């Protein structure tokens, strides 16, 4: 059963990779990169059960915690054109 789950995850990953390559907009790319991250979390988890040493879930946990940073950085990059503080009147883009 783990094998079937693994196969499903690998298939889903290749589809997400296809969307990442095709685009067409930047947002599609961020979305597919994000969903690829979720699938990697699951893949590493299932892989641990498959090999019989499931105590290495720390790596999945790490991804679940900090994959978020990349998305926030991308969002900030889109909206404010910088990762620092936007200064001055032209920065306001509500």
């Amino acid at each position: 059963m783990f094998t079937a789950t693994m196969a499903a995850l690998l298939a889903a990953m290749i589809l997400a990779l296809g969307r990442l390559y095709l685009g067409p907009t930047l947002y599609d790319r961020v979305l597919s990169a994000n969903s690829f991250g979720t699938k990697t979390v699951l893949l590493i988890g299932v892989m641990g059960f498959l090999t019989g040493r499931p105590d290495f879930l720390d790596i999945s946990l790490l991804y679940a915690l900090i994959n978020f940073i990349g998305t926030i950085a991308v969002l900030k990059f889109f909206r404010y054109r910088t990762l620092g503080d936007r200064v001055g009147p032209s920065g306001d883009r509500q």
Partner: protein
Amino acid sequence: MSIEAIINIALFVFLGLTAFAILKLRALFAVVMLSAVFSLVSAALLVHLDAVDVAFTEAAVGAGISTVLMLATLALTSRHEKAPTRSQALPLIVVFLTGFALVYGTLDMPRFGDPQAPIQVHVAPKYIADTQSEIGIPNIVTAVLASYRGFDTLGEVTVIFTAGIGVLLLLAAFIREPEGLRVQTMDHHLVLRVVTKVLIGPILLFALYVQFHADYGPGGGFQAGIIFASAFIIYALVFGLENARKAVPGRAVRLLVACGVLLYGGVGFVSFLFGKNYLNYSVLGADQVAGQHLGILLVEFGVGLTVAAVMVSTFYAFSGQNPPIGDEDW
């Protein structure tokens, strides 16, 4: 073919496809996203190849820091690669010739997974056999990293220290001061602010767990340092760089960069004073195993301090730059 071989092949094919896509695409933003995916796949592959500690490091680096640095660079330079103007024939020939020479070289290599390969019979069996009695911790990688090959690691930490200083020297002169202008942060993103506040605590806690649990599971100063830095970076991204600088001033971070290396070197110096070799921790405790425990703990803490401080000050240096691109050029 076993399921393990199939996973191995599938993940390597993913890596190849991603790398090829990176080569083909000229939109640099897509390249950054693809390199994040490249890092995810290689971390999964490293777990599959039993290198959990390495996968942990790759995950910590690839999930946040490298994407953030690349995006900061794109924000300061340009988002599109120009079409190549020169002929591509010569590089292609060189690459193919080198590739064939290397493939020819692999034909004599021991096959993948061979327990009798030269690499498996030389030093590694000693480390695996002696770690329990000499160092007394289950994670052999941490034992080799911090104790058996502690000198190497000191060198690596010094390299990270030097690279951090290089970044500061290159960029610090161009850091902009706001001078009373209104600073805009992500005030209107209520959802993001709340979720970030919820997450920062667990991230810091997890970093502490990784830092001090390294004896028993995958982890250590290198990974923990990056996770710590990630927590500060996420704070700076959402609540503004100025607020982050108020919480953790740039001066203090720059001081910590040096403190970590100093702590590592200092532990080695203490063993000098007791008349032992440099970085021989046995003198630090009542018996050898206790000394090794304390030494590894201190040394890993020094590593974590330096890595975290270098990453945070690098982020400050990059994101404090004046963006040269006007709003209309995009």
